[in-house]
């Protein structure tokens, strides 16, 4: 039973004449070449290091580090491993970058708005500040805050005393440390509950205003909730909190909490430097919003502050976010200048001391670079998510 002959499908062009096939083929070849190139470098490095008797591998991470670190967020001493010095350095980097980003943003927004102030003095002061800080190299600013300012602060025995048991000297800023008893967690829990309650109240009030037009003083009430309730609980359970006040013992102050000068100098320099860039970004973002929007909002009877807060800034944010992200990335990467003044960040502790003691440059540098890439990509991701949330939605 012969099948009727199926007519052969119309013959297309030969595969190498098909642009689709060709495009894919080129990309595959390019990718393979790239992989081969990196593999060769990798393999070469390993072979050469082995032939010269240089130790390789990540086994060193379990060895005892044997050196001290000035400042650590987690318990650390000389008997811990190199792996732990990595974590200590990483946390210190995150701390200074995180606080730097937070304060640079706040100061930057204030600067950007001040730059546009109709008040001549405020506008020019912001301008002068921005032009000075963003035109001086960051490393010089770090040295300025560290060496120039530090030299004027007295030694521990002539400390400047502040009220409530705080002291300032060239070893740092010492403040009393809160010592909490276990029942203090009730206060913390109340505080958390009060915040949840306040958020719910604000939503309810907004909803009601949207639907009925009636207003409710939600802000003062929620503020009273967040501050008042924890205080009330604190007082009822008998104030379970004492303060560990710093005292001069021997060379230095003991007790209390301490902010080391290396941290203060680095944080100040990073914050003030980046803030001036953010200020300009905010200014340009605001100016990019059409003036018609401001005029329209004034025509509706909004005050200047209201029109800025409700009309201009939400629109400006869409322009501000992308360049703001790169400033955050810059600040994080610039924090590696810590090594110049001895703040124990990742570069100083891990790529500095640990690298030298173990001599495993390739592994340590690779790990450090991977960390910065990971931090930067995380910041980018978060900012992109936020950008998507505020971006103009076309309906």
């Amino acid at each position, binding site marked *: 039973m012969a099948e009727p002959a199926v007519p052969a499908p119309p013959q297309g062009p030969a595969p190498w004449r098909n642009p689709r096939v060709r495009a894919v083929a080129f990309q595959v070849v390019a990718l393979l070449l790239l992989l081969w190139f990196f593999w060769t470098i990798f393999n070469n490095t390993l072979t050469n*290091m082995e032939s010269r008797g240089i130790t390789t591998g990540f086994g060193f991470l379990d060895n005892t580090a044997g050196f*001290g670190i000035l400042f650590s967020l987690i318990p650390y001493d000389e008997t811990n491993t190199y792996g732990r010095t990595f974590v200590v350095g990483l946390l210190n980097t995150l701390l200074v970058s995180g606080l730097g980003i937070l304060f640079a943003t706040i100061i930057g927004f204030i600067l950007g708005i001040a730059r546009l102030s109709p008040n001549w003095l405020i506008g020019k002061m912001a301008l002068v500040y921005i032009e000075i800080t963003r035109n001086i190299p960051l490393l010089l600013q770090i040295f300025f805050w560290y060496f120039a300012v530090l030299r004027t602060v007295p030694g521990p025995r002539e400390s400047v005393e502040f009220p409530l048991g705080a002291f300032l000297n060239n070893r740092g800023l010492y403040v009393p440390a809160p010592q909490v008893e276990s029942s203090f967690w009730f206060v913390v829990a109340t505080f958390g509950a009060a915040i949840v309650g306040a958020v719910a109240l604000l939503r309810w009030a907004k909803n009601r205003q949207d639907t009925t037009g009636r207003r409710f003083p939600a802000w003062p009430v929620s503020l009273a909730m967040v501050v008042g309730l924890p205080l009330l609980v604190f007082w009822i359970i008998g104030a379970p909190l004492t303060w560990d006040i710093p005292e001069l013992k021997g060379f230095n102050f003991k007790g209390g909490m301490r902010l080391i000068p290396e941290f203060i100098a680095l944080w100040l320099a990073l914050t003030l430097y980046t803030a001036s860039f953010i200020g300009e970004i905010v200014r340009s973002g605001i100016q990019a919003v059409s003036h018609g929007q401001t005029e329209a909002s004034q025509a509706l009877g909004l005050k200047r502050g209201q029109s800025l807060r409700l009309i201009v800034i939400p629109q400006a944010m869409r322009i501000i976010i992308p360049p703001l992200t790169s400033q955050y990335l810059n600040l994080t990467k610039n924090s590696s200048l810590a090594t110049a003044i001895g703040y124990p960040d990742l570069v100083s502790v891990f790529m500095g001391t640990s690298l030298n*003691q173990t001599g495993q440059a390739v592994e340590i540098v690779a790990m450090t670079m991977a960390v910065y890439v990971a931090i930067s990509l995380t910041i980018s991701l978060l900012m992109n998510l936020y950008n998507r949330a505020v971006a103009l939605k076309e309906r």
Partner: protein
Amino acid sequence: MTRFVSAVAAGLATLVVGAAGAQAAETLDTVKERGEVSCGVTTGLAGFSMPDQSGTWSGIDVDFCRAVAAAVLGDASKVRFVPLTAKERFTALQSGEIDILSRVTTWTFTRDTSLGLNFVGTTFYDGQGFMVNKDLGVSSAKDLDGASICVGAGTTTELNLADYFRIQGMDYNPVVFAAISETAQGFESGRCDVLTSDQSQLYAIRSKLEDPSSAVVLPEVISKEPLGPVVRQGDDAWFNVVKWVLFAQLNAEELGVTSDNIEEMTGSDNPSIKRLVGTDGDMGEKLGLSADWAANIIAQVGNYGEMFERNVGMDSPLEIARGLNALWSEGGIQYAPPVR
């Protein structure tokens, strides 16, 4: 197009392979061909390696590199000095950027065995000490509980410090700086109570303070710090040359050959001296050098004792006594195998 890409990739790969291959070649030949010794030194430490206003380097580490240049190239001035921080030094040597690392580097087990490097010998026997501000009224390192201590990053000093305070059961706050000048500045600005380093460096840093008499060096020496030049492992010819440059300087001092009397000593009948200055035997040839290799070192740089006194000894601002660094025959431990 593809052919072009693969050609470029292959070219790049050969470049990488080729560059790595060339480095493993004999350093001695490379140096002779280049006509220059590349020498890693500090970024500035009085007495060891320090540039003056005109950019001329001086110091005992610097002189040692000059001695190598005199032996290999016959001209002590053919050295290129590469200033390195403690953090950069081993990588610079491993990667072939420098031929010798002569940078107050302590000879330790780990460094000798795991870095792919070899220590040549000891140009300076040192030990770690503490320098404190005189106003503190501290007379012993045992009184330093709770002190803030300035220390250089990536040094054995950092580890010895941790060990010492742990053994003594005392607390300390290490403030770690990348460069020697910043460490000194941290101490001078009062950020630290104490600066710790090898004793020789303490004297060097103190001599550069605004008021050197404001600081005192405590008597305790808490570690052994044999400082010496380092070369890459697996290049025995170069290792031998650098090693015997040091031994030649020591032997010259022992035999009384100095830069002043080298002329008359070349006519000496003493067989030891004849072998050293190359008028007898073929010592230079065995190293792959000219016969007058050692005579060049002594004439242009001097023997070990001259090098020491000029840079760090009593003739210098550092005023360090010979102590352990005296010859074995004079109560020290500097001892070189004979040239035979």
